[in-house]
């Protein structure tokens, strides 16, 4: 148990090291190989929008509601398909929600993790307008980088993703 704590402390401490020096050796055990992607809170809270269809990069969780099929693009948002004909699902757009990995929908309201916030998003039946009706801030823990680091954030800064550093 002590060992785990110690490791945790080391990780926590090392996370305070600035992540951005690209000339650094990415195998340094005290620095993440990933770069923290952040936004200031104002920009972050304005970032949830409906977009045209977007290319798929990584497959995340799936969700179905009525005739819609929803595929998460981890930390970026959701690909929306009209699946009224399962033989021919049609991509109708992308709901951009930064830091999102989960969705659950009741009636016309979707609940989504938007980085550390939980947001309630009201949808219309055609899935072409959205409105954030509530934001519960800082509900969820900070996302840890894939190699186990926490970000070093300024006040008012929101972490939305980690991307592999390119050297």
């Amino acid at each position: 148990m002590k060992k785990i704590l110690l490791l945790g402390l080391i990780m926590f401490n090392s996370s305070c090291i600035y992540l951005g020096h690209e000339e650094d050796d990415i195998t340094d055990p005290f620095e993440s190989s990933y770069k923290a992607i952040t936004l200031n809170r104002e920009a972050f809270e304005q970032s949830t929008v409906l977009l045209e269809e977007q290319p798929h990069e990584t497959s995340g969780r799936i969700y179905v509601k009525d005739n819609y099929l929803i595929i998460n693009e981890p930390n970026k948002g959701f690909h929306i398909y009209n699946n009224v004909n399962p033989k021919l699902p049609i991509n109708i757009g992308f709901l951009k929600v930064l830091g999102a990995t989960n969705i659950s929908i009741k009636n016309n309201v979707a609940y989504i993790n938007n980085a550390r916030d939980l947001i309630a998003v009201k949808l219309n039946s055609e899935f072409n307008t959205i409105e954030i009706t509530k934001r519960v801030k800082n509900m969820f823990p900070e996302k840890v980088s894939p190699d186990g680091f926490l970000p070093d954030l300024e006040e008012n800064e929101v972490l939305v993703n980690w991307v592999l550093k390119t050297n």
Partner: protein
Amino acid sequence: MKKHIFYIILIIAFSCDSDGQLDTVSQDTGQGGSLAQFTIVNNYLYTVDQSSLNVFNISNLEKPVQVNTSFIGFDIETLFHFNNDLYVGSQTGMFIYSLDNPEEPKQLAAVSHFRACDPVVAKQNYAFVTLDGSAGCGGTLSVLEVYDTSNISEPVLISRRNLVAPKGLGLFNNFLFVCDDEIKIFDISNINEIKLVHALNVSAFDVIIRGNELIAIGNTNLYQYQLNENDIKNTTLLSTLNI
């Protein structure tokens, strides 16, 4: 008492984890796969993150209100509900919570297993868990485990079989679908003699089974199949979506 200790030792020794999920899906609520971390039960949204179970009252759908949060452990991965119980899967075990008081989930059982990724589904009296030792969660065994949950506070491991790299899973009447190296369909009508009856040779990591439709997602494709309960080998591929 001795019996209890015996069970505990048995469970620890054999390691298992049962997560149940069989979402009682009402029409007004959508449906996620077995890897979901959010689930809606009546007027409540439940979410799990790395270490906590959170409860939101959604009586007013547009204005969710956080009403509870509790620390439940480390490396929490999945959340499902069946009947009035929540099944939480973590990398080290499974927890079952009663929703008798929906705002205060009460822990009924905690079952430890070896370290592995572990989604779960459940039906009446049984829970099915996959443990994927190949997925970087630690551990090296990859198995499907079946638990008797007729006494919900004392799940008992009744069988375990080795698979390749099992991930998401789903129930379709008396059949269990498991995303392994391909999608394997087991007949579970006789729980003591579970048998493979069919396999879909596609790569997927999770499934949603809704009515007679199977939706399976993999890293590069999403597949939709029509299922036939009376002839499980008669699966019709409806579409393959390149993603």
